[in-house]
């Protein structure tokens, strides 16, 4: 007996994200950090902040924390991103 059965998935791949253009240098740039708010992000981002400024000449690091670590970043944070040269989004798990 032949069964003709149906595909249970959406079949279409969800829209893929596109990488932002890479920076030629970090020298003098503004880098934003978006933490999801979990404990593990604190030490990691502090460490990364220091490395970026001391070793790569980053001019400014802006740290922001989402109000809900299980939801997309708050609008006011997303609105700020256009003022940054690059963004690092971090999970604390």
């Amino acid at each position: 007996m032949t069964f003709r059965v149906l595909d249970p998935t959406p079949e279409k791949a969800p829209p893929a994200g596109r990488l932002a253009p890479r920076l030629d240098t970090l020298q003098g740039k503004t880098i934003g950090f978006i933490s999801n708010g979990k404990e593990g992000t604190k030490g990691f981002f502090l460490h990364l902040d220091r490395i970026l400024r001391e070793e790569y000449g980053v001019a400014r690091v802006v740290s922001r924390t989402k109000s809900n670590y299980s939801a997309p970043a708050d609008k006011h944070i997303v609105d700020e991103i256009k003022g940054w040269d690059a963004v690092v989004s971090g999970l604390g798990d």
Partner: protein
Amino acid sequence: MQLASKTYEADSISAVQELYHSSGWTDGLPIVPPTADAVEACLEWAMMPPDQLIGIEPVRGLAITAEKLAINAVMAGCLPMHFPVVVTAWMAMMQDEFLMHGATASTGGCAVLVVLNGPIRLELGANGTFNALGNSDRATAVIGRAVRLCLINLMDVRPGVIDRSTLGHPGKFSYCLAEDEEDSSWLPLAEQRGVPKGASSVTVMAAGAPRQLMNEWTTKPEEILETFAAEMRANLRHYSIHPGNYALIIPKQLREHLQAAGWTKTDIATFIHERARIHRREWAEVGKGAVVRDRGDSVYPAMESPDQLLVVAAGGPAGGFGAVIPPWLGNKSHAVTLPIGVCVDCEPPKK
């Protein structure tokens, strides 16, 4: 009826199972082959064309159509009459306040608890008595499983993919129960939450595993409910301090003592709201002293207000048991109640 899904051919029932398992399309259990006839029967029962948009998943923008829900419902074992419940549960899960992406992706590992109210329970043979939180009946088993298979197949909520649960719990196979409205003098959960009397409805809640308790040594409401409150305090101490929707499942033996004393669901919620709270310093007693800091005197209630408590009359007739079902992560996700099949182009539910 013109279905859009890709069709596969398999020459035996075993081959069907291997196709679905090897493609990652199951929960590990065998599935019912989703043939066009079976899927069309579900859609016809619900009077939905295959391409009807049930909703857009709010975070990733994924379109959920009736056809794909029906395929997964058939796979779970649903009959056509079960399908409108699955659709309504998904409509409820796609409300912003449910935060479906967070709840289903989280390391916290909750499942979607589905509570049925109204005449649909009787039409489907959904049983709110013996084994209410387990394998009580066909309807709740397959509806709960359909909700999970849809998450797996429509949103990639597979372990290690979108589903990042550290542990998960057995309710992730199926987590659906019916309220025992016939054997209770209390308002049904849905009516308590604003659904008109007599309407069938679905309530969804991002929920941890049930925490079972027992107290058959008293008939006093305050003492019975103190056991429930203590279990909630344990959850606040051992799991999460965030306030949110908790569900209490109260079977007949304990329920009758409460009802005999004239306690309503509102009375229960008011009492529980007062009693289910802890001081932050209590965390030091359970190994979490590092996060007490200088806020030891702060008080953390399990719910922000009494109306966050979902009281459900369900369970077998004997035994002084009950259960507390804790939220996934407090107010990050809110329980949502929707009536079933009331209209096609409804306005969004009022906040």
